């Protein structure tokens, strides 16, 4: 499937399957592909994770440097999120400066973490108005078969949960874990025909279907959402999807995130 365009026959096939509650890889509509997370895979990073979500594979890194707080938030540190659609990962990914899809994935993953206050910005203050931690969150996708939003979000959360503040590098004492105030889980679904399917593959994302990503915290509260790609949802479909998203997030939280060592 090295082509950006999916044929009508492929689309119809996926729609027909969905009508019967089935998918081309025999998963259930709500079923995620196999997920594995390994943390502390990169010694050079303060925190890191290697995530496989079916055929999608990402490395996530947390780097922390000392920097200047913004003048309008002297008591806060800074978080910057970048998600790269490396050309290695798919024949569809382009080189050159980031275009819409790359910018979107960076910003949506960023909002999922920022809006849930996963890392409280005040906890990154070193000296008010003078020095703070600048935290770089990088998602590096090396193999792509859809649903980069969930793989990247999960990997960054795992990397954050296992990150160590490098106090020793700046004569600030021993390394210590980052404060994690909340653990948002993003779950993504597409609509094919009249059905909602979770954890879409690249092919499922390409069949002109609308997609919705929802970030839920451990209290079941919605912290971020994004509809993207073609087409639309009826409002009741969205409300139903939100409820299923919250359940899936809870599942991922207990099945996958619990394996991440604190």
């Amino acid at each position, binding site marked *: 499937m090295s082509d950006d*365009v999916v044929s009508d026959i492929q689309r119809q096939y996926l729609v027909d399957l969905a009508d019967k509650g089935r998918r081309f890889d025999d998963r259930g509509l709500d079923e995620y592909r196999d997920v594995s997370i390994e943390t502390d895979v990169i010694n050079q990073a303060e925190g890191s994770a290697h995530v496989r979500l079916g055929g999608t594979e990402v490395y996530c890194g947390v780097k922390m440097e000392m920097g200047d707080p913004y003048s309008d938030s002297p008591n806060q540190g800074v978080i910057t999120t970048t998600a790269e659609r490396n050309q290695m990962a798919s024949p569809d990914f382009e080189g050159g400066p*980031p*275009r*819409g*899809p790359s*910018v*979107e994935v*960076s*910003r949506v993953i960023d*909002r999922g973490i*920022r*809006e*849930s206050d996963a890392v409280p910005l005040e906890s990154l203050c070193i000296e008010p108005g003078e020095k703070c931690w600048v935290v770089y969150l990088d998602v590096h996708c090396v193999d792509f078969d859809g649903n980069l939003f969930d793989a990247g979000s999960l990997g960054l959360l795992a990397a954050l949960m296992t990150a160590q503040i490098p106090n020793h590098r700046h004569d600030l004492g021993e390394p210590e874990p980052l404060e994690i105030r909340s653990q948002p889980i993003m779950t993504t679904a597409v609509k094919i025909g009249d059905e909602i399917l979770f954890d879409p593959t690249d092919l499922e994302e390409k069949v002109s279907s*609308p997609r*919705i990503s929802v970030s839920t915290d451990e209290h*079941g*509260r*919605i*912290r*971020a*959402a*994004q*509809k*993207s*790609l*073609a*087409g*639309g*949802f*009826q*409002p009741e479909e*969205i*409300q139903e999807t*939100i*409820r299923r998203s*919250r359940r899936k997030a809870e599942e991922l939280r207990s099945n996958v995130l619990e394996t991440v060592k604190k």
Partner: protein
Amino acid sequence: MAKADAPDLLNHEGLRIAERDPVNDEYTYGRGKDELRPIEIEAGVLNRADGSAYLEWGENKVLAATYGPRECHPRRDQDPAEAVVRVTYNMAPFSVSDRTRPGPSRRDREIGKVTSEALEPAVLTQLYPGAAIDVFIEIIEAEAGTRCAGLTAASVSMADAGIPMKGLVTSCAAGKIEDDVVLDLSREEDFHGEADLPIAVVPKTGDVVLLQMDGDLSADEFDEAIDKAYEACYDIHDLQKQALVDRYQGSATNGGNR
């Protein structure tokens, strides 16, 4: 998102800020929870574009222009099966409190992408295989809800350009302030509020074609916010249609609103 030094966003009667006196930093209350800021739309305001619209929404001032269907450059953007809808969303450097550098920011490019994905479902793209429909949204002045204002204007500009569509696309946001779900956040409400949820709807089909949200909502609040914004889209849809009627019945005086 609650921040220190916030003004009261709701007064004792449950009314919202209607106006702010910048000199004395005092607020006048009066807007209801389900009440939109004032909206005015005018179609066909530009000479060169194939279609255009001007929209004021609260203190937002937005222009939208449509060119096309026309040849698609560069070729890598072409789709042999249908027309592509390309949206450039841009903030004028003087549109916001801190001057921005000319040219689309990363935020602008994300909004351009989701806006094009919201407009495309309403367009009969298969009529113009290989062509481009180029939509330009310029935010002349920004308050809050610029993406909703831009999208709503863009859709009118496409209709004004005669692009064949299933229907107009309409956009509106709901949000949460002081634990209440309310319609159409203003600048202060956006800044001090707890959540913002902009959506876009194709009123003809009922499809939600844009949805973004950040903040903190329970599932019930999320539902309530969708419902409020969804309903408001139908009201705004009437304003869009009226702007097009006025345009073609000549009752609008060109430049009347501006």
